[in-house]
């Protein structure tokens, strides 16, 4: 008990110094947690991918479409349960800064393949009945105040002209990691409009989402799908939904790596600050450590006092930092709108934050603890006089 009493009272001896060190730790742990959460958001799509979903796209690039008639050929491949066409719409709502993902989808098929999108009451049926209807996710609806029945105007970029939709349904996610920042509307509506406006671009599909009966056969089925279109004008590349999403992450990998590096640099900076604090503390208390050793306390006890104090400060900073991460991440999520569809502080991030705080506490005490343990009693006592 005396040991813990000494540790606690030593830690609170210089309240301002300890307070500032804890504050620094809180900021570092919070920053680390936020940056890790942002990195996690980058992978949200891949993490939310289902193993029974494949994505077929033009083998050259996503930019190039595929003919609509591929849909039936893909559906005919053994092991395929459902196929749905989807196109990235890329329209502008009011202002280009108000970005959110919009997809034209084979509605009837599509939502059966995504059971994680949950609809209330008859809303889904209402959407399916209205060819100009749209579905928006809960986060998107909350961000821009969309309600069922509202008109949602978009200015086309990839598909030119003004487009108008009626919000018929708002979906929720089955899990916290489900992306609810998207908008969906009928692919048929897009195609019919394009037939009128730019006929040569009609019957063209961006990607086919393919649901398979047995996820273990995904590689085999992917090859079978692609084999159908080999040597055609639009060869395909089929991959799992997760691989497809990770392809997007890979395009921005440098940014992800940068954020990761910065998050660890923040931890390293606080380590230097904390080590300096502990070194100062240890130097000031050499006479006390020498006295304890003179009284018969072992060098290990003296080192443990330094480690205990460092860990106590680090743990306080770590716990407060973790506690602050949740509200700050929630605030950050509202401020960034739909930029990060899923900004969730994961248990892994919390564990990493605490591990970093403890590692900082231990590392900062290594040299001061060693010095305190090794101080010669005679020299330590002289440090006082």
């Amino acid at each position, binding site marked *: 008990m005396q040991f813990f009493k000494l540790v606690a009272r030593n830690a609170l001896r210089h309240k301002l110094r300890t307070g500032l060190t804890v504050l620094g730790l809180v900021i570092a742990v919070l920053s680390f947690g936020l940056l890790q959460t942002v990195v996690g958001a980058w992978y949200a799509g891949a993490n939310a991918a289902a193993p029974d979903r494949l994505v077929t796209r033009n083998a050259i690039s996503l930019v190039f479409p595929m003919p609509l008639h591929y849909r039936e050929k893909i559906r005919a491949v053994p092991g395929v349960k459902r196929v749905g066409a989807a196109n990235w719409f890329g329209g502008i709502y009011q202002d280009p800064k108000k970005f959110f993902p919009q997809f034209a989808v084979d509605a009837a098929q599509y939502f059966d393949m995504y059971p994680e999108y949950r609809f209330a009451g008859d809303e889904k049926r209402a959407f399916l009945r209205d060819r100009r209807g749209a579905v928006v996710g809960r986060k998107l609806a909350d961000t821009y105040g969309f309600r069922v029945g509202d008109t949602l105007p978009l200015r086309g970029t990839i598909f030119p002209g003004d487009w108008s939709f009626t919000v018929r349904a708002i979906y929720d996610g089955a899990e916290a990691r489900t992306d609810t920042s998207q908008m969906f509307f009928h692919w048929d509506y897009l195609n019919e409009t394009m037939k009128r406006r730019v006929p040569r671009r009609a019957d063209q599909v961006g990607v086919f989402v393919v649901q398979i009966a047995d996820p273990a056969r995904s590689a085999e089925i992917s090859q079978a799908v692609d084999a159908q279109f080999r040597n055609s004008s639009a060869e395909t590349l089929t991959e799992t939904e997760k691989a497809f999403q990770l392809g997007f992450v890979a395009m921005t990998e440098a940014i992800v790596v940068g954020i990761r590096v910065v998050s660890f640099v923040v931890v390293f900076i606080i380590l230097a600050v904390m080590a300096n604090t502990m070194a100062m503390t240890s130097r000031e208390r050499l006479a006390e450590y020498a006295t304890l050793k*003179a009284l*018969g306390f072992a060098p290990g006890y003296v080192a443990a006092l330094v480690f205990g104090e460092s860990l106590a400060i680090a743990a306080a900073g770590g716990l407060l930092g973790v506690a602050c991460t949740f509200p700050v991440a929630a605030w950050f999520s509202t401020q960034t709108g739909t930029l990060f569809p899923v900004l969730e502080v994961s248990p892994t991030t919390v564990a990493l934050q605490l591990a970093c705080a403890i590692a900082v506490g231990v590392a900062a005490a290594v040299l001061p603890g060693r010095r305190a343990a090794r101080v010669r009693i005679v020299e330590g*006592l002289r440090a006082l006089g």
Partner: protein
Amino acid sequence: MTRALIEARNIFKSYRRGGQAVPVLHDLSFDVQRGDFLGLMGPSGSGKSTLLNLLAGIDKPDAGAILVDGVDITQLSESELADWRAGAVGFVFQFYNLMPVLTAFENVELPLTLTPLSRRARREHVAAALRLVGLADRMEHYPSELSGGQQQRVAIARALVTDPKLIVADEPTGDLDRQSAAEVLALLDQLNVQFGKTIVMVTHDRRAAERAHAIKYLDKGELSEGEDLHERSLY
């Protein structure tokens, strides 16, 4: 005849300064009998504190043997020495060396945490020690709330609470006013006379030295017996 509590034999000690060995103690041999109150005097830099440190086991000689109660402490490892100090020696320092974050009670209790005594037994020992030094009513005070003399009395209580045979005191009155110094010396005297503690005290203070039963002078690394306090240069 009873064996002396301290038997120092052919002690050599030097320090390295600027790459050169500076001899401090040169072939010292002496005994301190059980129940003695020995005053160590001498000019500054004569090696008084060095000798005291060697007797207390917080420093080691370059050569020679120091037997305390039959144990040659020069042959003990660091951890054995720590254990030995915890049970055999009580320390009184010039600047008290109390833990500022612990109360008087907790400071006195500190050495007892190294013993197998129960919490209740520890409390009784601490209370008795603080009563003995006249600070029973200041148990919950922190060192910063006590005067210099009171802090030194707490330090004396800490030194005697484990009931060691030997108490070493390095300039115990060096930082105190005359009144407080007299109280501290009276306490040391009481420990020696009433409780039979063997005390070795380094001091510059002639009044303090007068309390000792025997005086040894240390000068240029050599020890001599002292009779006339007033004929010696102490600075």
